[in-house]
């Protein structure tokens, strides 16, 4: 069990130089390459990025779900004073589902099709707490009611295929929170759901976070939901964090051109229907064959303003104001000016 108290002076979650690399026949794939994170207890961190940016692998590494036989995991992950990477698998297994829990992208396939949903949650309880099946079932019913499942007494004995996608995600949330974990990792929890259900699920996660005091890491590619939920945002690109800031700062004063690109890609109801979305051009680089300089350089509209630096040198993640870290070769004044222009354009105001 995690002991609290000794770590009052330290953040609840600290990730130091986390790396996850998969050896393949074509070479070493560095899915995550030197990530640093900190997160205070009870707060929400959003990790944002395109598919393949390494955000899901980061989540799975924190969860201890990366197969240690298939991947090299390096660095340190401190949760409440305990370091997870060097910890024996048996102890990590103790923490999984009790102190750290996770909900996944696709509730259709994340529940076992052969077992009743109630039994699956009872199993989660009894994996960590000795409890009679009867009591565990009572607690399960209570939790299912709490996450907003109607007609719980009947639904508790249903199989996953008898429930809708939104209901299944509620079941997943109930299962994740049943042992009151200190940290909840939500990996694209709404991506596979209908738009109307998405908002309900995010509200539910927020409400429960408030009730249980859970710390949340939200993995998503949707900057639209991040603004309402997260206290802090880390933008990932090609296995690295390229910008990190408190949410308000990131939205009001983004600096990294990739973040600007993500912000421009969010469809908005208040924008003119004829106005085209402005997606980031090109595709993420192959993790085996990364560009020599800045990894974002081939897709960057402003790389010619770095004096050729972005072609040759990897930029560092450096402070650019309080709590604001940016990985970019552009001079700070230059990228702030670019950001103002882009945001003004997005807001529809004259330049």
């Amino acid at each position, binding site marked *: 069990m995690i002991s609290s108290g000794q770590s009052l002076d330290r953040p609840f979650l600290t990730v130091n130089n986390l790396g996850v690399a998969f050896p393949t026949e074509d070479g070493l794939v560095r899915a995550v390459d030197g990530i640093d994170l900190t997160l205070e207890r009870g707060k929400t961190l959003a990790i944002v990025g395109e598919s393949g940016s390494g955000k899901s692998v980061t989540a799975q590494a924190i969860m201890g*779900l990366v197969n240690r036989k298939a991947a090299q995991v390096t660095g340190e992950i401190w949760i409440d004073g305990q370091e997870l990477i060097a910890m024996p698998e048996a102890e990590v*297994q103790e923490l999984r*589902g009790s102190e750290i829990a996770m909900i*996944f992208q696709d509730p259709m*396939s994340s529940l076992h*099709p*052969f077992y009743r949903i109630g039994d699956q949650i009872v199993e989660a309880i009894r994996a960590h707490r000795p409890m009679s099946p009867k009591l565990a079932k009572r607690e399960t019913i209570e939790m299912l009611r709490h996450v907003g499942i109607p007609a719980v007494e009947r639904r508790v004995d249903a199989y996953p*295929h008898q429930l809708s996608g939104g209901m299944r995600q509620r079941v*997943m949330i109930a*299962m994740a929170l049943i042992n009151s974990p200190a940290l909840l990792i939500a990996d694209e929890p709404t991506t596979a759901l209908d738009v109307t259900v998405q908002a309900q699920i995010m509200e539910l996660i927020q409400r429960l976070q408030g009730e249980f005091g859970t710390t949340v890491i939200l993995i998503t590619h949707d900057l639209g939901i991040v603004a309402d939920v997260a206290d802090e945002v880390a933008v990932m690109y090609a296995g690295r964090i390229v910008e990190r800031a408190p949410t308000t700062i990131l939205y009001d004063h983004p600096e990294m051109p990739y973040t600007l690109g993500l912000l421009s890609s969010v469809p908005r109801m208040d924008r003119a229907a004829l106005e085209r979305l402005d997606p980031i051009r090109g595709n993420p680089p192959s993790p085996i064959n990364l560009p020599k300089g800045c990894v974002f350089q081939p897709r960057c509209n402003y790389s010619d303003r770095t004096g050729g630096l972005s072609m040759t040198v990897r930029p560092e993640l450096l402070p650019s104001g309080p709590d604001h870290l940016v990985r970019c070769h552009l001079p700070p004044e230059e990228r702030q000016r670019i950001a103002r222009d882009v945001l003004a354009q997005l807001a529809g105001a004259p330049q």
Partner: protein
Amino acid sequence: MFAYLVRRVLGMVVLLFLLSIAVFFLFNLLPGDPARLTCGKACTPAIIEANRHRLGLDEPVLTQYEKFVAGIFVGRTFSPDSPEPIQCHAPCLGYSFTRHEEVLTTIETAAPVTFWLAIGAFIIWIVTGITLGIVAALNRGHWPDRLVMGISLVGYSFPSFFLGLILIFFVIIRWQILPFPNYVSPFDNPVQFLQTMILPWIVLASLQAAFYIRLTRNQVLEVFSEDYVRTARAKGLPERVVVVKHALRAGLTPIVTAAGLDLAYLLGGAIIAENIFSLPGLGSLAVTSVLQSDLPLITGITLVTATIIIVANLVVDMLYAVVDPRVRVG
């Protein structure tokens, strides 16, 4: 579930009916004259005609079929106007004039041999196939995997008749580990029964076991990348529970179905195994009846075998509905 069962049983009855038509007409349209075969070399057209009448072969095919079906339910009498009419009690699958025996009696004598052969081979095939497949999958890329896949490849590439002859030559003749096969009922002499059956079981099981090693390995590897297995790990369950309760339960279920469908293979494969080891089962009987153009017996064996396979499929589908809740319909 009950409605589903009723529907399936009704479907089975219809299927059997259609099958009996197909089998009966198919074999009656075959070239060759069964009546000619009933009398030896000293044959005259008059005797052939008399025999044809005695066998009921002078009647239209449709009438013959009606009598055949009626015989199954109420029994029938062959050559009723001769001095010695032949009674065939219900369920009557016909009368073999070559053997002078009711078809059902012949089949009933031979069926237990094939039954024991199939059961033993089925157990060997499923147990080795699934166990070795799981071992290979859990050790993917390491030496146990390579060893098992090597064994599987050998099992694949040996034709079963060749494997049978090799086994007879070495195990029985050269090393004399086992006596020559001589079938007895397991209830009369269990030791001799086992000594006789072990090699036929291996021969009959080898190819299927080799196939099931690969099938199981692929299934298990596939199911390990399923999201719900990741969920099981995320719950903090011990790896043993993740593997057995979550991964294998889901991964092995389709194999149940495949195995049920492959039961048909056993009955086909029994023909080879029984002939190599001179076992008096349905397989040997089928070969003999074909060689002797014993039409009633061929029809009877085909119908009985088909019925067994259809019933087995039904049972397998029922089992599948028990293990996979998604299949439970209506």
